[in-house]
């Protein structure tokens, strides 16, 4: 028995549309070890949310067309499971935290009742027992006066509290995998710090694996162990957090890192990556990043580079990764 919790191999998702087929995800591998937090980073439209939904098998097919070679959760093959069987897994073995807590929660049901439901359904608890567990789950994520707050409706809570409720909901059955899709993006800075802290301590203390999906590298820096950088439906770089931040190999990763405004330096111009993400219907030839890349050469315009594994376990999809310069002299 390995310690791999989530294993996804060669995930492809496409959406047929009037203008052509939109290839949202083009063959992605994702591996999450036990207790590890893996981050999937990319700009909007790169396919990261579609990946999250596919991992949960929440993507409606049709309209989406998806293919996956391997999809295992804790060694169990999910590819052939029926919707019924998936319902038993979702919420119990894996759970998702959405970005917008207001739309993720049912507005006409108290938050306590929504968490009770998880316990009653998956653990077959009685109403009373479920409520007891709900209150302690709310306490765990730092909701003050949890007993009375459980009787509140979502609109009566602040944004930070709602996000905590979502975290409590996701962690209710202590699943093996938590997927957090932009968990703090819509929150204020001080609240974001609080919520991230809760999420991190819940994940660490209960040894739950997490798949964190975000466009914000500063969130990644505070949570993740391993980082996958995604661009236009493909993984362009994979590395351990510290290595990635210390030495990005893909020009896109370097650009992303440089564009984060920092307190430590004062400069008038911000570092920017030129242009925007290619339209999913009109992806460029060769490497998808080459029109925005300052190092692009002839091969980049013609062929898509492979995701090459390096000797230290890192992976990068680039003909001319940034590290080469240093190693060529030897």
């Amino acid at each position: 028995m390995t310690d791999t919790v989530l294993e996804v191999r060669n995930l492809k998702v496409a959406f047929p549309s009037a203008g052509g087929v939109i290839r949202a995800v083009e063959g992605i591998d994702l591996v999450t070890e036990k207790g590890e937090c893996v981050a999937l980073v990319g700009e909007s439209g790169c396919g990261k949310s579609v990946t999250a939904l596919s991992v949960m098998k929440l993507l409606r097919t049709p309209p989406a067309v998806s293919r996956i070679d391997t999809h295992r959760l804790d060694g169990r093959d999910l590819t052939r499971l029926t919707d019924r069987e998936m319902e038993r897994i979702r919420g119990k073995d894996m759970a998702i935290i959405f970005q917008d807590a207001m739309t993720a929660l049912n507005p006409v049901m108290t938050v306590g009742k929504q968490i009770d439901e998880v316990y009653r359904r998956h653990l077959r608890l009685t109403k009373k027992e479920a409520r007891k567990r709900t209150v302690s789950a709310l306490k765990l994520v730092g909701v003050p006066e949890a007993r009375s707050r459980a009787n509140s409706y979502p609109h009566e809570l602040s944004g930070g509290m709602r996000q905590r409720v979502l975290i409590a909901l996701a962690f209710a059955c202590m699943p093996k995998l938590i997927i957090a899709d932009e968990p703090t993006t819509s929150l204020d800075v001080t609240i974001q710090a609080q919520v991230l802290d809760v999420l991190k301590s819940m994940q660490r203390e209960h040894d739950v694996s997490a798949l964190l999906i975000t466009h914000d590298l500063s969130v990644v820096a505070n949570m993740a162990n391993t980082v996958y950088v995604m661009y236009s439906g493909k993984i362009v770089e994979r590395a351990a957090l510290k290595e990635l931040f210390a030495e990005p190999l893909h020009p896109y990763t370097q650009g992303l890192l440089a564009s984060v405004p920092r307190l430590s330096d004062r400069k008038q111009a911000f570092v920017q990556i030129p242009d925007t993400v290619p339209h999913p219907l009109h992806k460029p030839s060769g490497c998808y990043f080459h029109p925005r890349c300052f190092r692009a050469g002839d091969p980049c315009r013609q062929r898509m580079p492979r995701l090459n594994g390096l000797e230290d376990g890192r992976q990068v999809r680039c003909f001319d990764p940034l590290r080469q310069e240093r190693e060529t002299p030897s």
Partner: protein
Amino acid sequence: MRINRSPSDPLLELDRVSVHFPVKRTTPFSKRRFIQAVTDVGLRIAEGETFGIVGESGCGKSTLANAMIGMVRPTAGSVRFQGDDLYALKRSAFKAARRNMQMIFQDPFSSLNPRFSVYDIIREPLYIRGGVSDAAMRSKVLELLKLVGLDEEDLNRYPSDFSGGQRQRIGIARAIILNPTFLVCDEPVSGLDVSVHAQILNLLMDIQKSRNLTYVFISHNLAVVKNVCQSLLVMYLGKVMEAGQSDAVFAAPLHPYTKALLSAILDIDVHGTRDRIILKGDIPSPIDPPAGCRFWQRCPFAMRGCETIPADLVDVEEGHRVACHLVSGFSSEQIAAGMDQPVSPQPVR
């Protein structure tokens, strides 16, 4: 307007501005209550500078910006733009002044009419002002479109064809078409991806330089504010907590709230572990805010006096003001009454 204005006069000056909105009474006999969105804010914005307003949602920063450009009449205090009291101007003079002040909004999705083409959106201010031929209008729109980095062929497309960053560029073009002198940027990048932030910020800086604009820059991200602003104002629940030259404030932030905001910025430095202040609780409601220091319920250093005695803004050095009892201290009678004893932060209801 004013011929006898000296260049050292501020472009915009706010004196003890308060904006309170009445809350609808639930019963005819209940007490009238007010949302104290902005209370007693004073500031001076010099010509050509970028002035930052920092705070979390609900702190009144957008209301303050609206009061600056004549969109919300303050319940107390005065707003002077180019030396004139904005809210005492006659209708025609007010309209002329308003032309000089424009705004860039946070959400590039809801601030553009989805049924207008890019051309219609950008030209609208000019069209409303009138007095320009169609040909002149078109060439002006084209010029601005190029300036903000869009193509001529985008002219007849609709907002839904564009990404968030591109929409924000359209919003910027619309804001500068009347050649304003004063531009309020209300969280111009917070709805965008981090990678696009830099593009939009650089564009705004370039435009400021080439057209000599004065900016008010509203944000909750101090890292961005530090890089673009010369002066700044930190607000909490409608009141100024700390203000001054941004160099001075960032060199030595004094208010606990400023410190908390600074430490809440997630750095991408993965090696250094900083001592982070994580504030407890949420922002209280601006209806009936705390009587003393508005921040005391969440302040990790709150003292007994903070609950009841308001903290006044005091000068700590040239161009740096702070409203905090930790800095200004209590009088000897207050200390004798035990006002400087620490209290544990109260849970915010």
